[in-house]
């Protein structure tokens, strides 16, 4: 079999923004009126990777890492400052109609569907825009309906749908034209656990049936671990890791956080059990960091030796993992 051309080719892609810089205060405001000072923000620096047709690749990274910027360049919304990219043989930011008909971008935090009318009508608009014949349109809609369980949702005004229902319709709207490449930016954001699971299942099944290439960004580790065999980690605009999940967990020493609320007023030294850390999300409990394999043993010791009122075991937030893994 001849080697297939990658669906997505990215070579040294960079994007630098110039952001006006201004300090607070009246004097600074007056000064900036006359002379603007700019700061360079290097949102994406020299990123390169290839993606084969049919792959599902996860883009992971903390907020502001450059994931969305990269996605916008690949979908054609942004012109890069430097570098090249080719998606399905097209240069995305030329926004050729043939390219636009073979890709889709779904952004979890932005709505495409019209608020006041039922989703079904927005779908019809898409049919007209993408020039789908009635047969094509009905067949695709039927399949999406089946996979996403859209049913009665389509008849309700989008305003009346819950966030999860709306997300399903947004995704369906983006797939009516059977694109070969899907760019999904935080598709599960704000959804509850069952909502997230449903979207993930759908994407897996859709990829299996259609062979579409999927590029997905998220800051939920779970999205990525559930769907993607390959992960790309972007941090501060740079590509830090590109490879399989299995290798990743070997790369980042797995650890957990144990949070404990002690019922007496004495200050116990927890350093015997693990590395004390601050947890911004919970100021009541005291937290220590422990390697995953030691968690059970350490927990048992703590329960035996300390007056424990409440104890929790959590995963560290993704930001902390990445910080730790790539800033050493």
């Amino acid at each position, binding site marked *: 079999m001849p080697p297939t051309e990658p669906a997505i080719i990215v070579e040294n892609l960079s994007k630098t923004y110039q952001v006006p810089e201004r300090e607070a205060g009246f004097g600074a405001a007056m000064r900036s009126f006359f002379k603007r000072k700019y700061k360079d923000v290097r949102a994406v620096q020299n990123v390169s990777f290839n993606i084969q047709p049919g792959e599902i690749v996860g883009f992971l990274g903390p907020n502001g890492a450059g994931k969305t910027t990269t996605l916008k360049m690949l979908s054609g919304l942004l012109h890069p400052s430097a570098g090249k990219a080719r998606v399905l043989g097209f240069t995305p930011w030329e926004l050729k109609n043939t390219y636009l008909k073979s890709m889709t971008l779904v952004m979890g935090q932005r709505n495409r569907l019209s608020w006041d*009318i039922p989703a079904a009508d927005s779908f*019809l608009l898409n049919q007209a825009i993408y020039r789908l014949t009635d047969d094509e349109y009905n067949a695709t809609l039927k399949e999406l309906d089946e996979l996403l369980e859209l049913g009665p949702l389509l008849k309700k005004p989008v305003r009346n749908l819950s966030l999860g229902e709306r997300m399903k319709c947004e995704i369906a709207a983006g797939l009516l034209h059977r694109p070969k490449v899907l760019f999904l930016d935080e598709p599960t954001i704000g959804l509850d656990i069952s909502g997230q699971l449903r979207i993930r299942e759908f994407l897996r099944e859709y990829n299996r049936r259609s062979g579409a290439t999927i590029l997905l960004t998220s800051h939920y580790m779970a999205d990525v671990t559930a769907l993607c065999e390959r992960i790309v980690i972007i941090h501060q605009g740079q590509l830090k890791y590109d490879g399989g999940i299995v290798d990743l967990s070997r790369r980042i020493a797995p650890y957990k956080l144990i949070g404990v609320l002690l019922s007496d007023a004495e200050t116990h030294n927890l350093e015997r059990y693990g590395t004390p850390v601050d947890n911004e999300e919970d100021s009541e409990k005291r937290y220590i960091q422990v390697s995953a394999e030691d968690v059970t043993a350490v927990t048992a010791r703590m329960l035996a030796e300390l007056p424990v009122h409440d104890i929790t075991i959590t995963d560290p937030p993704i930001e902390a993992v990445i910080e730790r893994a790539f800033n050493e």
Partner: protein
Amino acid sequence: MRTLKLLQTLLKINIQMSLAYRADTVINIFLSLVWLGWEFLSLNIIFSNTTTLGGWGIGELIVLLGVFRLVNTYMAALIWPNTEKFNASVRDGSLDYTLLQPVNSLFMVSFSRITIWRGWEVLLSGSLIVVGTRMSGSISSPLSLLTFFVLVLSGGLVLYSLWVVLIALTFWFTKFDNNVTILQALLDSGRFPATVYPAWLRIIVTFIIPIAVATTVPVQGLRGELSPAQVLGFLGISAAAFLFAMQVWQLGIKRYSGASS
């Protein structure tokens, strides 16, 4: 043609949206009629004190009123709703979706919203034009009628081009939410022939915010006041304005997507 099919779908959607607000439609029709009554009263008072205004008789003023209302309907039915939608889409980022659709982005921005029920005002305007033409008697040669229609369309094109430039300014000045207010502000000047205004106002409404090109000029064409050269001149201006507006829009989109050219 595909564009026609798209327009059809947009119309269907907008009809549906307006059906949800039926009672408002009735109220709005009522208010329109109240203002029409006011306009007739004004004309009545003016013409009980004089026989011509700026050289025009009452028939021509009624035709002008019809053209003015047509322009006003265009503003209310297309320009305002789409301006709101556009400003919102820039603010919340849904403009990105519009740009990724395999349709001309300006087309979608111009026609996504159509206030359907205002269609009746087009009929009203048409009636005013017919009645006014009859009343003034001397001006209904086929050539002058043709000139009139052509100039109405080209005047509309000039206003459309101005609108495109005004909303495109948002790409450079993001806080420029009031982009179209200036167009609406000067719209009232279209009720009366521009010849009545002092020179400085006449210049503003003819060359800067060319409301007069969409209102006074077509009626001048109807009266046969314009030479063929002048008529062609106006057509040329509207074509040039349209091309200029297209360019500005393209530049705006490029700027929005950070193209460094």
